[in-house]
């Protein structure tokens, strides 16, 4: 089955990295096929940033998102720009301190997490994307927890691993809690 995931936010939030880690986790550590693409504006920080991941058990043809099953947004502008890509009944995951959903969100299953605030509590807002990946892993189950962590471990410089592990587990545990509360 083909699964389409879109990440959106601002340059500097680690949106590209989040997509790369997710796609690699699926392909290398979960043994599936995946395609990862990215798009960014000319500015390194502060401009729009988006990445796309397609996961499948079979060889992937069209490599980009057509109708996203999952949309993860970490800025209001990304919410405004990419919501139309999410298919009806799809899963919308938001950075709840930075994104205020409007009435259109009622068509989707919505999960929110204050990822940046959690990252700051851990020690650095730069790991907000990793908090988000933990949360995404827990609430969607698209990628296994082990695969996601291995992929993070390989992408992140060793000296930052401890902080990233805290961030990943914080997001993951929060996701599990949210799931329990909603069931």
């Amino acid at each position: 089955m083909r699964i389409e995931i879109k990440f959106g936010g601002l340059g500097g939030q680690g949106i590209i990295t989040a997509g790369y880690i997710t796609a690699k986790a699926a392909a290398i550590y979960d043994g599936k096929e995946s395609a990862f693409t990215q798009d960014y504006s000319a500015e390194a920080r502060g401009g729009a940033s988006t990445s796309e991941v397609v996961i499948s058990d079979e060889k992937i043809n069209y490599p980009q998102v057509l109708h996203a099953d999952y949309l993860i947004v970490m800025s209001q502008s990304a919410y405004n720009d990419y919501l139309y890509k999410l298919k009806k009944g799809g899963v919308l995951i938001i950075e709840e301190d930075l994104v205020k959903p409007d009435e259109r969100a009622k068509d989707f299953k919505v999960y929110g997490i204050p990822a940046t605030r959690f990252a700051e509590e851990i020690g650095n807002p730069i790991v907000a994307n990793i908090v988000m990946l933990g949360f995404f892993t827990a609430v969607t189950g698209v990628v296994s927890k082990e695969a996601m962590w291995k992929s993070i471990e390989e992408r992140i410089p060793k000296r930052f691993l401890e902080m990233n592990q805290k961030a990943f587990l914080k997001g993951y545990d929060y996701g599990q809690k949210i799931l329990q509360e909603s069931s």
Partner: protein
Amino acid sequence: MKPGYYFWSGDIAAAEGAIFAGCRFYAGYPITPSSEIAERMALRLPQVGGKFIEMEDEIGSIAAIIGASWTGEKVMTATSGPGISLMNENIGLAAMTEVPIVIVNAMRGAPSTGLPTLVGQGDLMQAKWGSHGSYEIISLYPDSVQETFDLMVDAFNYAEKYRVPVLFLIDGMLAHMYEKIYVPPEDAVERIERKRPTKPPGEQLIYEPDEDLIPPMPRIGEGYKIHASGLTHNEKGYPELTPQAQERLIRRLNDKIRKHAEEIWKVEEYRTDNADVIVVAMGSNARAVRTAVDEARKEGIKAGLLRPITIWPFPYKYIEKYAVDYIVAEINYGQIYHKVKEYASGNVELLPKMGGELHTPQEILHALRRYKK
């Protein structure tokens, strides 16, 4: 590189594939979306005993690899957009002086500066006709990260075997897209080296062809008299500015490729048996076509995909083979469409896109529905 699975972009696969093929010299000038090839080569070539040079521009880059190739090394450069336009004069020089080189062109939205980060297929004709004069080159164009790696070995083999520039096309999508890739063991592929002279220095004329029309190539510094001139030359390599010398040389430069065209052709034929309509598509743009063909078949439309992997010399016999209608889906306003039209017996329709994005499966399917019988 250790055999196994990796998660690479098309750019990384192009660089690693080149190293796997035996490339040990790269000169280049970075330009989006090909820059990661230079970045990877800068990291990796020193690790395998090779050399990387960042040049002052694209003209210098291709000049440097032409020179380096005369030392006997396998060589490459990579560029995109305005960069490939700058390289075209020296592509002609490499064709004229029969120097094995590989040039990667990551096609982006164009003309001019166009869409630096986005996909285009506007350089398909330029790959063949970019330099002045009537000459043949070889051009290959993969559709996935895996095929980029695998096909790089063929690119170097062709360059070496036929002593010709190989234009290795990728596109903005493929260059930056990441996929899983398998790197085989070192000894899993055949690597071809250029023919060496069999006669000693003094007896060997450097442009004296064998029966296959390809002359053996000495290394510079081995004692052979090497005079490699862009002027029309005789078998010694000396300028001979006559219609007779031109007739002999240019005819041979073309024929050495044309006569071996069928050995060079690589084409994917997907569900083309008993098809009524076949989509011709190349590179990353062909991927959506496979989905559309499957969907169309479910709707009772006998559709297929013909994907030229060898773009030049154009694999025209595959077009002639099918008495069908053709749709040519390309990210330009009609290039390979004209080649297909030249050889097709049925109707040929152009499905163009000006650049920036691939055709979607839905767009291809929509076109195919018009051929429902």
